[in-house]
């Protein structure tokens, strides 16, 4: 483990929040994409 000194909390929380936000937008993007693809395929196979 690398030494972060007295600012450990600062650095870790910055990384934590940023990565969480990035993960949230990536997750939302992928989920919406999968849903749109599935619905379109369902519709096209039906029609």
């Amino acid at each position, binding site marked *: 483990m690398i030494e972060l000194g007295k600012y450990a909390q600062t*650095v870790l929380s910055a990384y934590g929040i940023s990565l969480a936000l990035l993960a949230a*937008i990536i997750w939302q*993007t*992928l989920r919406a*994409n999968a849903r749109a693809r599935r619905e379109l395929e369902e519709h096209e196979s039906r029609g």
Partner: protein
Amino acid sequence: MSIWEYANPVKFLRTSGTVLPWIVAGAALCTIGGLVWGFLTPDDYRQGSTVKIVFLHVPAALMAINAWLMMLVASLIWLIRRHHVSALAAKAAAPVGAVMTLIALITGAIWGQPMWGTWWEWDPRLTSFLVLFLFYLGYMALWEAIEDPDSAADLTGLLCLVGSVFALLSRYAVNFWNQGLHQGASLSVAPGERMSAIYRYPLYLSMLGFFLLFLALVLIRTRTEIRRRRLAALLAREHRA
């Protein structure tokens, strides 16, 4: 062969489908690589370990501004040449840009707390990013509020044009309003004030990573929007039949 061929949604879907895996791989590689490399850099003699935050803060801020620029260009293309993919790409970029703005603001606040002794300072750069975030919120809210997709594209495009002018004006107005604490450009070319190489190279890599990440997200979101639009068109046709 010209770039306008990608205005055809089918062609766009096919081409973006083939390049997307490469972009995703590049984005993952560069972002993770840049952040890990950045995390392992030695402490700065003045800032201590907080210098590591720069590898998140600067790329996010860079993409926050470039996302708005990209929306401006895409809106102009839609308003002038009426290519639907362009309007959808502008729509797709907004949430990603808003998240980048938020990351830049939050990392800035977290860094500012020990360094400047305050979470928030009404500094020109911080303030103009807050205004930029408000513009993103208004833009997304307008997309959500209008039902007819073409009207929504037109009106948000207009808002993006007018908003760009005023965002830029605000940027210079706040400069005038309050002298800031924020340091100048981190990657200034002027000798003597640039960062040392141990920080600069991981920062470049991280910036490339964020750029590719933004590109990948916008492509995926644009594909989502195209599919949604197609589904809505099919349903409408069935409804009529």
